[in-house]
């Protein structure tokens, strides 16, 4: 809980990571900056005392309800349906069930029809698994996951972030929230040599750098005015709802959203990807 004394907020960091399996399953040099920076960020979170990571992934899509992961056994082997040629990814999450219940309760009180997911073999999305493996390696902080509802608007997602931020602020366990999302979304739809990976459209690169620059300067209002253009011209990942969640989190935790730091930026199969942190 944020206060006027020296006790740090439970919300220690917000970060944005890409969730494509290429970062784990390919040894191509052009992905290493993204990989190394995500790993270093993970180390930094540990040093900041983070004991819990909440994931919000644009690849975990909800349609009917808002979903929160509360399962007791969330482990297995994952094969991405589109990138299966790249191989398997093992995963093992230690879910913070009491916190997940708190979050689900808060969402319900906030008017969201919410389901707490606790099913053996419930599919965990590639993005969450990739981000977790990059941030945590073999460590196992407490985690939970919040789904990205396809039909939620930017403002709906921001409200969701507020509710989540409030839960984190009201809980003593130091927490980081990781939004798993890309930037521009024009992927190559034909095979490419990974050594030749690049942002598919020049306009996408322009858009990505512009958005990153504004995040680094903390010019959030300006970004809000650009969302439609970013979506239409650069096919931003889920309409950049990840940013909506970030704004909401800060609101809910009672702190301003800090200026971002961009640790790395680059292409993943044509899309724009960045490792960003907002350290609270």
């Amino acid at each position, binding site marked *: 809980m944020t206060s006027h004394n020296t006790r740090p907020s439970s919300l220690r960091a917000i970060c944005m990571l890409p969730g494509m399996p290429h970062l784990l399953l390919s040894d191509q040099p052009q992905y290493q900056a993204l990989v190394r920076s995500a790993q270093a960020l993970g180390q930094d979170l540990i040093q900041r005392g983070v004991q819990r990571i909440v994931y919000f992934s644009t690849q*975990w*899509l*909800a*349609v*009917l*309800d808002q979903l929160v992961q509360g399962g007791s056994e969330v482990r297995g*082997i994952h*094969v991405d*349906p*589109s990138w*299966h*040629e790249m*191989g*398997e990814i093992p995963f093992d999450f230690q879910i913070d069930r009491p916190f997940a219940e708190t979050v689900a309760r808060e969402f319900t009180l906030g008017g969201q*029809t919410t*389901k707490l*997911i606790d*099913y*053996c*073999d*419930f*599919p965990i999305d590639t993005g969450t698994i990739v981000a977790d493996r990059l941030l945590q390696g073999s460590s196992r902080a407490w985690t939970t996951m919040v789904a990205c509802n396809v*039909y939620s608007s930017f403002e709906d997602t921001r409200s969701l972030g507020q509710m989540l931020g409030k839960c984190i602020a009201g809980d003593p366990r130091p927490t980081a929230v990781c939004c798993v999302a890309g930037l521009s979304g024009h*992927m*190559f*739809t*034909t*095979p490419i040599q990974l050594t030749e990976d690049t942002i598919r459209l020049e306009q996408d690169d322009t858009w990505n750098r512009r958005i990153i620059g504004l995040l680094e300067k903390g010019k959030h209002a300006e970004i809000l005015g650009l969302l439609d253009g970013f979506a239409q011209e650069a096919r931003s990942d889920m309409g950049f709802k990840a940013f909506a969640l970030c704004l909401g989190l800060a609101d809910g935790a009672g702190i301003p959203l800090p200026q971002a730091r961009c640790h790395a930026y680059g292409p993943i*199969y044509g899309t724009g990807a960045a490792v960003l942190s907002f350290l609270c």
Partner: protein
Amino acid sequence: MGIVAGFLAPHPPHLVYGENPPQNEPKSRGGWEMLRWAYERCRDKVRALAPDVILVHSPHWQTVVGHHVLCVPRLQGRSVDPIFPHLFRYTYDMQVDTHLANTIFEEGIAEGLTMSRMTQPKFRVDYGTLVSLHMLNPNWDIPVVGLSANNSPYYYDDKIAQDEMTRLGAATRRAIHKSGRRAILAASNTLSHFHFSREPNPDLPEDMSREHIHSQAQYEWDMRVIQLMREGRTRELLDILPTFMREAFAEVKAGSLTWMLSAMDFPEIPATLHGYGSVIGTGNAVMEWDLSQYATGGSPI
């Protein structure tokens, strides 16, 4: 040998849930009987036709780069539907006709398509594939081939996308002939696809007093499309599909129906409607094209 039948085989997991088969963990009081009983007629037909293989094209196996085919001899696992986990937690064990899958791969390449073989044994099969195959053959005693839905409809315009599916269908037809298989095709898709944004009765998902088509407009679209299929007016159907997709959010956009019609060489025989019903507001039709009866010289397509 060749294609003996095609089925429009929608995949709402509610149909498996309503049936209470041993493979599915959640249990129900029934529900969606009209559609499930429609599938019973298809099951009888599948058994009578005695195919060597059932091929299914599923919108819920989405792939970005090209068209993919399942190519592992045996796939086992448990599939939990990410949207309806309370309805569908299904243990599957399927034999894949990898010879035919490889042939489809080769013919797709020859057609100029981007193709890929899925060879990971721990791959989790999507619920669309599983539901359609279960509803057609719950004994799983016929080998299968699963094909992905390439995402080109969502990256390019509908015409380019449907062209891709048409070529995939042609490649599939050639592959089936080369393989010597007696094949049944399944287009795993719903028709109109606007749906409820909340489950009408979370305490009883099978509460049929709350089940209805999402809108009159959707219903009219579904009837128009079904009537064209019943009259064998396949070419007209293809012409209106883009508008159907736009106005009714039709799941045919994923390409399964176009793939199947193309593989069957756009048959002008009347399709049989076995049943129609809504599932959380979407429109679903179970339909059959029996090619074994109408093919020239008694040979299938």
